[in-house]
C-alpha cells in the first residue's frame, strides 16, 4: 500500500444522529481527502467525499482575509462589548467545543441556544412535562417486535436506522430481523420510507394530536366515536387494530420525527406520543425516542443540560441560568430584534431561520465558525474556517439515543478545531472583562456609565 494511503477502521460518520461508528475510510493523505467510505449510507458517502481540505482563508474579518488570531481578537471585542449576545448552533461540533461555548455564555452573561430549539425542542419541553420511556438503539435492535415510525422519513434522513437498528437488523430476541417485527409508519404523505412498513397510516395534515389522543383512549379501553375518521383521515377500525397491536407486542418502540414538532401543536404532539408510550407500559414494554438530525445535536442537549440544568434556550444575564422557550430561544430573540451580537457555531441560521430573524442577523455583528462557507458566513463580521469534526478534529459526540462515541479522525487539517477557536475567544474575552461580566441587575445603565 502506498505511503500516501491510510485506512481508518471503525471511524464515525457525524452527518446525522445515527452516528454510525463502523466506517472503514480510505484516505488519500497527499490530497487530504477521503476516497472511499465503506459501510456509509448515501448521506455518509457524500459527507466524507465532500469534506476534503478546501483552500479558504483562516478567517475573514469584515470581509478581509485574516489570521485565526486576528479573528479571535475581533470576535472577543464584539462579545465583550455586547449587551445581549446570543450563542447559537453547536449541533455539528464536538462536546468538547460545546462545553467551551457554555463557558463563554456564562462569562459574558449571554444567551445560549442550540439547533435543538428548531428541531426537537418541543420534545424537550414535552419531556419536562411527562417524562420519557427511553431505550438505547441497541435495546430496540435486540428486543423490539413492533416499531412505529411517526412523522419522519428515515429512508432519506437516517438511512441506516432501518438496517442497523429498527427494521431489518437481527437482534438477540429478533433473530430473523424484519420477519420478526411489525413495522408501522404514520405520516401525512408517502415517502421513500413507506415501502418498509407493514402498515402505513396516512393522517390528514394537522391531525397527529387527535390520532394520538384517540389511541390513548383506545389503549385504555375507552370508546372513540367513528367520526374520528372525518377529522383525521384514519378509520376507527385502523386505530383499534393499531392499539391492539401496541398492547399485545412484547416490546414496542415509537420513533418520531419533526412531523410532530414542526407542526401545529408542537410540544403537545410530542407530549401526546410520550404519554401514549407511558400508557402502554401498563400492558407491555414500550419506549419512545425522538429521531435526531444533526450528528451531535444530542450531545448539545447533554452538555447544555449537565452544565446549566436546561437543554436549550438558556439565558445567563442575571448571573445564573434561566430557561424559557419563546423568550430565550434564538428565533424569538432575533425576530424580536433583541440580540445585539451573535456567535454562531457549526450552523447556518441565515439559511434556515424565518426571514424576520435573518433580517436581524444582518443588522448585528455575527461571528461564525464553519468548515465551509455558508449563508451565515457570508453575512458574518468575523467568519472562521474550522476543521471538520470527526474527519479532522477529535472529540466526543452523542448518538441520538444518548450514547457517547469517541471520534477517530481520518487526517489532519490546517485549520483549527471549533474547540481551539472557542477556547482562544474565551481566554481573550476573560482578559477583556477581567472575569465574568456582572449580572444585569448590577450593571450600570449605559448613559450613567459613560
Amino acid at each position, binding site marked *: 500500500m502506498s505511503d500516501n494511503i491510510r485506512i481508518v477502521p471503525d471511524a464515525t460518520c457525524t452527518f446525522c444522529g445515527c452516528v454510525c461508528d463502523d466506517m472503514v475510510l480510505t484516505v488519500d493523505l497527499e490530497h487530504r481527502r477521503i476516497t472511499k467510505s465503506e459501510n456509509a449510507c448515501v448521506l455518509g458517502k*457524500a459527507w466524507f467525499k465532500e469534506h476534503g481540505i478546501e483552500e479558504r482563508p483562516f478567517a475573514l474579518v469584515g470581509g478581509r482575509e485574516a489570521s485565526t488570531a486576528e479573528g479571535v481578537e475581533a470576535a472577543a471585542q464584539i462579545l465583550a462589548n455586547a449587551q445581549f449576545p446570543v450563542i447559537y448552533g453547536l449541533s455539528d461540533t464536538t462536546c468538547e467545543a460545546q462545553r467551551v461555548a457554555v463557558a463563554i455564555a456564562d462569562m459574558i452573561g449571554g444567551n445560549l441556544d442550540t439547533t435543538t430549539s428548531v428541531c426537537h425542542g418541543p420534545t424537550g419541553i414535552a419531556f419536562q412535562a411527562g417524562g420519557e420511556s427511553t431505550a438505547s438503539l441497541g435495546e430496540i435492535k435486540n428486543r423490539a417486535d413492533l416499531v412505529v415510525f411517526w412523522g419522519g422519513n428515515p429512508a432519506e434522513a437516517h438511512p441506516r436506522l432501518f438496517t442497523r437498528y429498527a427494521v431489518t437488523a437481527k437482534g438477540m430476541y429478533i433473530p430473523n430481523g424484519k420477519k420478526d417485527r411489525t413495522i408501522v409508519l404514520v405520516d401525512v404523505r*408517502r415517502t421513500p420510507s413507506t415501502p418498509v412498513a407493514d402498515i402505513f397510516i396516512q393522517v390528514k395534515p394537522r391531525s397527529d394530536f387527535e390520532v394520538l389522543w384517540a389511541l390513548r383512549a383506545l389503549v385504555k379501553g375507552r370508546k372513540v366515536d367513528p367520526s374520528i375518521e372525518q377529522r383525521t383521515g384514519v378509520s376507527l377500525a385502523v386505530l383499534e387494530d393499531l392499539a391492539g397491536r401496541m398492547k399485545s407486542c412484547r416490546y414496542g418502540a415509537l420513533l418520531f420525527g419533526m412531523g410532530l414538532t414542526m407542526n401545529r401543536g*408542537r410540544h403537545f404532539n410530542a407530549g401526546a406520543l410520550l404519554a401514549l408510550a407511558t400508557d402502554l407500559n401498563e400492558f407491555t414494554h414500550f419506549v419512545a425516542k425522538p429521531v435526531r438530525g444533526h450528528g451531535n445535536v444530542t450531545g448539545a442537549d447533554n452538555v447544555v443540560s449537565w452544565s446549566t440544568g436546561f437543554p436549550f434556550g438558556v439565558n445567563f444575564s442575571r448571573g445564573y441560568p434561566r430557561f424559557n*422557550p419563546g423568550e430565550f430561544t434564538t428565533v424569538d430573540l432575533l*425576530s424580536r430584534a433583541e440580540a445585539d451580537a451573535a456567535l454562531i457555531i457549526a450552523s447556518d441560521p441565515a439559511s434556515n431561520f*424565518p426571514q*424576520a*430573524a435573518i433580517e436581524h442577523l444582518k443588522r448585528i455583528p455575527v461571528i461564525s465558525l464553519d468548515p465551509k462557507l455558508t449563508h451565515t458566513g457570508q453575512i458574518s463580521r468575523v467568519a472562521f474556517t474550522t476543521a471538520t469534526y470527526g474527519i479532522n478534529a477529535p472529540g466526543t459526540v452523542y448518538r441520538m439515543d444518548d450514547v457517547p462515541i469517541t471520534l477517530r479522525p481520518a487526517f489532519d487539517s490546517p485549520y483549527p478545531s471549533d474547540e481551539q477557536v472557542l477556547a482562544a475567544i474565551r481566554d481573550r474575552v476573560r482578559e477583556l472583562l477581567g472575569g465574568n461580566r456582572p449580572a444585569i441587575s448590577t450593571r450600570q445603565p449605559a448613559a450613567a456609565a459613560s
Partner: protein
Amino acid sequence: MAVTMTLIGGRSSKQGTSLCAGKLGEEYLQISSTVEMNVEDMARLGLTNDSMVRLRTDVGEAVLRCKGRQTKDLPPGLLFMAYGPLSSQLMAGDTAATGMPISKNLDVEVEPVDGSAPSGE
C-alpha cells in the same frame, strides 16, 4: 388564479447529499428551490414540470420550480419542498412561546407565474 394549499417543508436525500458539497452550490440551490405538487393539481393550474409558481404566506413569498408527483405519493392539495433559503421566506418568526417556528403544514397561496428563475422576498 391563486389557490390555497398546504406546504410541508422537509429533508430529502438529494438535499442532504448536496448540502455536503456546500449550501452555496448550484445543486443545493436547485433542490431547495423546487416544490413538489400533485399532478392533478398541476393540470388544474395549467402547470407542467419546471413551470414556475409563486407561494405566498402572511409573511413572505417565493417563486419556485414545479415538479409533479402522483396522487399515491402526494395527495391533492399538499405540497412538499426541501428546506433551504426559499422555505425560510415563507416561515413566520412567531414561535408561540416554544422557540419553534412552524415549517410544516403551512397554508400557502399558490399561483402560476411567468419566468424561469426561482426567487424569494
